[in-house]
Structures are given as C-alpha cells and as structure tokens.
C-alpha cells in the first residue's frame, strides 16, 4: 500500500493490492482509512511547515561517519534506537491486523496505521530483538519487504524502503489488446475519451464512458447489448461486461448463454434470454427479465456469503446497499425503463462514408445502367462534382457557390457508376444499399433519407415497393445540387434484410461531357424486437 501511495508500484503490485482490497469489506475500509489518513497527514504537514533541511545537522544524522561502514552501522542503529528500543516484527503484527480486519468488518477495525496492535491481553504484539540480532532482523525484513511494502506497510517506503519495490516499479509490457465486441449501431453517440467510433469499429477490452447517445454492441460470443447513455462500462471478455453506471439491454441467443453483466452490487448471468440492467450508483442495480431466465448472484454484506436466484420472464429484482445487499424482488419487469433502447437503434448508409480501395463505396452498389442489369452489381465510385469553371457554359453557372454539395470524406460524398461502365449515353443509374433489421421490430423501423442527384432522382423503392419522390429542393438563390431533399419512410420494412433502390436520371447526352452522380444520407431507426411494444403483445416464451 505504501508503494502504491508512493507511486512506485507496478502493474503486478497494483493488481495484488486490488485483489486484497476486493477480498473483503474490511480490507476496502482499511484501504480507505489509509488513504484518508495519508492525505490528511500530507495536508497537515504542508500547512504546518516545521522548519527546513538546515535544521537537520549532519551530526544528527551521522553523515560524517558515512565513510566508516562499521561506524555508520553502529550509529544508524544508535539513531534508530532513539525512536524506540524495540523493533516490531512486522509480518506477525500485520497478519494479526489483517485477520482482525477481515473478521471485524468496517465498523470495528482500528485503522491501517495500527501496526502495533494490542492482543487480547492488552499487550502489544511486538517482539523485542536483542541488538546483536537487529541486523539479522533487517535482512529478514528485506526478504519479505516486497510483499509487505505494497500490502500492509503504513509508511511510504515501508520498513524496507522504496528499494524493496524497485523490481516492480518497471511496468510490465502491456498485453496485446483483445477485441471482444463490435459496434453494430449507434445513435448520436459521444464518448468521453473524445474518440469517434464508426459502425463496425472493433472494441477492445477496457473501460468506456458513453456520455451521449445509444450504442449497439455485438460481443464475440454472439450476445447483443444496447447501452444507453450516460453509461460507464468495461468490456472484459467476449462474454462479460461490467456496467458501472447507466443501463443496458441484452439479448443472448442460446449460444451466448453464460454472458455476464457485472454491476457494482452483483452479477447477472444470462441463461439464454432478453433482459435489461440499470445501475444507480450508491443505490442499487436492477434486473428486468423480458424473456427467459437470468441468474442473479450477490455477496451479502452481513455474512459475506454468495446468494443467488433465478429470475424468470417478466420478473425483476434489485440489489445494492439500499437493500442490504440482499436480492429484492420488484413488482414486474418494466421495459419502459429502457426507453432509449426501445426507440432508437440506428444503422446508417451515407454515400461515400465507407470508401474502400480505389475509392469504391462498399455499401452502395450500381445494379442497373439504362436498361442493362449488372450482375453482379458493382460498387459505386467517388464522384467529384464539376466546378463552376467546368460548368461555365451551363445555366447552373449563374448560381452562387457552391453549385454542388461539397464532398465530406468518410461522412458524405457524391458517388457515380464506375467510369469504365459509363458511356456518353447513360441516362439512368440505379443504386442500391441494404441493411439488416434482424433483432429489431421491422414494424417500428423508420428510414430518414436525404438525397440529391445530378440530374435528378426519378424513383425510390424500398424492397421493390415505390416510394413517392418529393419535389426537388427549390430554395431561392441556392443551387438545386447544393441541398438535400428529404423523405421519411415509415412502412414497407421486412424482418431481416431490406434493400432500398434510388434511380438517378441524367440529362440527355450532349456534345460535351455530362456528369451524373448521387449523394444520399440515410439512417434507419428501429426498436429492438425483444422489447418492442410489450404492452400490445406477449413476449414468446
């Protein structure tokens, strides 16, 4: 502990200290007392400046004898003896202390500094060592020093000094990151670390703080988790997440059984089910089971023993300090608590947002050129709209800049058919993209589409069904190519894979080169099927 507070502890030491703290409430409280007292002492000493280094004479510390090793040892011993005539055998004392802490819990322990505890008879648990044996004792302390310094020593540096932890002060090489989940969908997310994670991003082990929005994670074992902000969570493995604050909804297929949601107050272990978990710091964790069974495991504060309970469909429980760390049944599972997850699950398909090699869009395909069906369909490619100079002979050149909506790489760009496929006489191009509503309630899906095209969009089809095309934007003094036309689609979705098709019509070929392209901003929202509309229909058993 001293090494930790001195900042000289390494990864291994830190892990062992963490294990010790987690071993019992008493240990955690002992650590807390040490932290508070350590901080208070530092603060006190800073406030009360007791003089300076000059007051420490060399004679007092016997530096003048440093050249004489024997004399130095004797005088150091002499110096130390001024502190006290006995030297506590720390391991014995501290083991006693640790036992007391574990047995007594928070309320009865006497603090981390009480290394010289008293035993039942009131005598100090110290062993007086004859002076000739003192240095042997010091050697023994050196041997056990490392263990002692990080775990129990009440003083920075500890009885064996900071050198005892030196081997551990060098950080161990960081293990390679392990990908445990994939970001499948998101809605207006903001991460506290400032990173912008795109759909498809692979998430490694570690901690995440979602300050805004909703994200949908697919764990490597198949479990699907929707996390709602604000939330703090840690990804531990392909089958475990720790939710420290916030709420999530999990959907585990049979192959993902055993997926564990850990919270500060207990674990929820999936037995093949759909459930929601919320964590309110300082109060409780709640589990709401929408379908199937979840095993709840807590460690009681009174006995320290584990308690578990199987929670079934439509049941809910709460655990946490305000329930005495016992499993508290709630009235019913309440999907309404997980409102954000119900309403907002997003996939997005912006043109040009996933340009691959050769600036080919991997998500938007050209399926038809004029009357020619492309089999297989070919990826659209980046289209750099012509400049005003290039269009100076056309009527559009009289409009203010920008003539075309500017390309925003990785976000929204114009696309066009592969030039090798385009001839001067291309008049129509059909683009398609698809998205998967598996795991979502198709009837709740909404599609927001913003689009523009050179020259125009002549048809939009969702799964083959035509969607009315709104009139082209007609804002005054703005180029018709510099704004997005909007349409919302609220029906016609299918469970599973869906396809939307946009047909672009180009101006009739002229002598000079013609341009054609499409820009589309498309997002799909839907409710996860396992909690959608629970009031209207019973969930399957």
């Amino acid at each position, binding site marked *: 502990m001293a090494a930790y507070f001195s900042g000289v502890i390494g990864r291994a030491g830190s892990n062992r200290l963490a294990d010790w703290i*987690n071993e019992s409430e008493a240990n955690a409280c002992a650590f*807390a007392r040490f932290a*508070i007292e350590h901080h208070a002492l530092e603060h006190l000493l800073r406030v009360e400046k007791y003089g300076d280094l000059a007051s*420490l004479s060399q004679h007092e510390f016997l530096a003048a004898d440093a050249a004489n090793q024997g004399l130095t040892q004797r005088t150091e011993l002499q110096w130390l003896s001024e502190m006290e005539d006995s030297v506590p055998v720390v391991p014995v004392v501290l083991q006693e202390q640790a036992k007391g802490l574990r047995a007594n819990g928070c309320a009865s322990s006497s*603090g981390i500094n009480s290394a010289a505890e008293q035993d039942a008879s009131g005598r100090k648990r110290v062993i007086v060592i004859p002076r000739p044996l003192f240095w042997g004792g010091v050697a023994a302390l050196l041997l056990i020093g490392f263990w002692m310094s990080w775990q129990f020593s*009440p003083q920075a540096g500890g009885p064996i000094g900071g050198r005892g932890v030196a081997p551990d002060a060098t950080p161990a090489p960081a293990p390679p990151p392990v990908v445990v989940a994939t970001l499948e969908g998101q809605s207006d997310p903001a991460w506290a670390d400032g990173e912008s994670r795109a759909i498809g991003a692979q998430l490694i082990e570690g901690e*995440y703080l979602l300050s805004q929005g909703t994200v949908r994670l697919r764990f490597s074992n198949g479990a699907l988790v929707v996390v709602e902000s604000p939330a703090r969570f840690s990804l531990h493995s392909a089958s475990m997440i720790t939710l420290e604050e916030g709420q999530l909804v999990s959907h585990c297929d049979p192959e993902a059984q055993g997926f564990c949601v850990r919270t500060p107050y207990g674990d929820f272990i999936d037995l093949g089910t759909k459930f929601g978990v919320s964590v309110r710091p300082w109060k409780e964790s709640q589990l709401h089971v929408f379908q199937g069974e979840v095993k709840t495991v807590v460690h009681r504060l009174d006995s320290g023993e584990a308690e578990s309970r199987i929670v079934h469909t439509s049941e809910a429980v709460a655990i946490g300090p305000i329930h005495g760390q016992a499993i508290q049944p709630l009235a019913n599972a309440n999907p309404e608590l997980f409102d954000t997850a119900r309403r907002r699950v997003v996939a997005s398909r912006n043109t040009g947002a996933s340009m691959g090699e050769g600036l080919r869009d991997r998500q938007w395909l050209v399926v038809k050129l004029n009357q020619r069906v492309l089999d297989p369909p070919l990826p659209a490619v980046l289209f750099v709209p012509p400049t005003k100079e290039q269009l100076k002979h056309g009527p559009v050149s009289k409009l203010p800049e920008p003539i075309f909506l500017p390309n925003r790489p990785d976000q929204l760009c114009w696309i066009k058919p592969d030039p090798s496929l385009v001839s001067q006489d291309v008049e129509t191009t059909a683009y398609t993209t698809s998205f998967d509503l598996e795991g979502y309630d198709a009837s709740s899906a909404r599609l927001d589409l913003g689009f523009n095209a050179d020259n125009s969009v002549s048809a939009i089809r969702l799964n083959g069904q035509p969607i009315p095309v709104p009139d082209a934007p007609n804002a005054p003094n703005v180029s018709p190519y510099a704004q997005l036309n909007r349409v919302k689609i609220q029906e016609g979705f299918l469970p599973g894979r869906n396809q939307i098709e946009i047909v672009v019509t180009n101006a009739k070929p002229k002598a000079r080169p013609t341009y054609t392209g499409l820009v589309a901003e498309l997002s799909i929202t839907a409710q996860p099927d396992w909690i959608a509309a629970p009031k209207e229909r019973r969930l399957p058993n």
Partner: protein
Amino acid sequence: MIEAYIRSLVPDAHDRDDVLQETAKQVAVMFDQYDPERPFANWAVGIARLRVLECRNRRRREGKMFGGDMLNTVATAILEVQPEMSQRIAAMEQCVKKLKPRHRTLLDLRHTDDLDVTTIAERVGVKPNTISVALYKIRTKLAECIKRRVEAEDRGGGAS
C-alpha cells in the same frame, strides 16, 4: 475527502492534480444540479469518479491504476469510514504537534517536499533503509498516539 478519494486511485501526482482540478471545476459548473436532499459527499465523489475514470482510460496501458470496479469499491469504503475519520484526523493534528522536531522534519521531507526515501537518505547522509525504518516507526508512534487519544475521547476524558 474528495482529495483522499482521488489520492487513493490516482498514483501519479501530476495526474492527481489534473483530476482534482477538473473535479473542482465540474462541481462548480454542475452545482445547480446538486440535489440538497442527497449527501453532498456522495454527489461530489460521483463527479470525481468520472474524472478518475477518464484519467484511467488515458493511463490504461500503463496498468498502474486500479480497474474500473475499484472506483466504486473505494468510493463506497471512503464514504463508509468518513464519519469516523474526523475524530482520528483531529487526534492526528495533536499527535503531530507532539513529535520531536527531527521526526517532524523527516515527515516533512517525505510528505511536504515529496522526496523519496533514497533522496532523503542522500541528503542526510544515512542509508535509505535507515530512513525507511525511521519513517515507519514515526508513523507507528503516530498511529498509537491517535489511537490513545481517540480512545480517551470515547471514554469522555482528555488525552495526554
């Protein structure tokens, strides 16, 4: 107490200062959101916890900071022991005043000037081990003094 919480979870002094500063700023900014019916300490520790977590995310690779689950464990423990600590800290103030000047100087070098044991030993011309043992014994004596005073106060009497 907030400082102690941060101190307990952020080993690096510079990081600690940053976290403390960010926490103080956040508390000030969000103070109108504070619900007076809830304990202020809990609320403030909750804010500090977020800042500590951010710091940990930045330092994740180094592995010197505790895992995320420890943030709650330590916070809960600190809030739990906090009521009993004011008496102990008051006793500590009295006990520190009773230390011999050279002992106080040694503590000062370690904690106020933030010198490590080796540096102190070099400056005073003894072995680091000597300083370590001396510091340990000073802290032990301090702990015993605190314990005596607290027990005496609990019995209703004064402490020497």
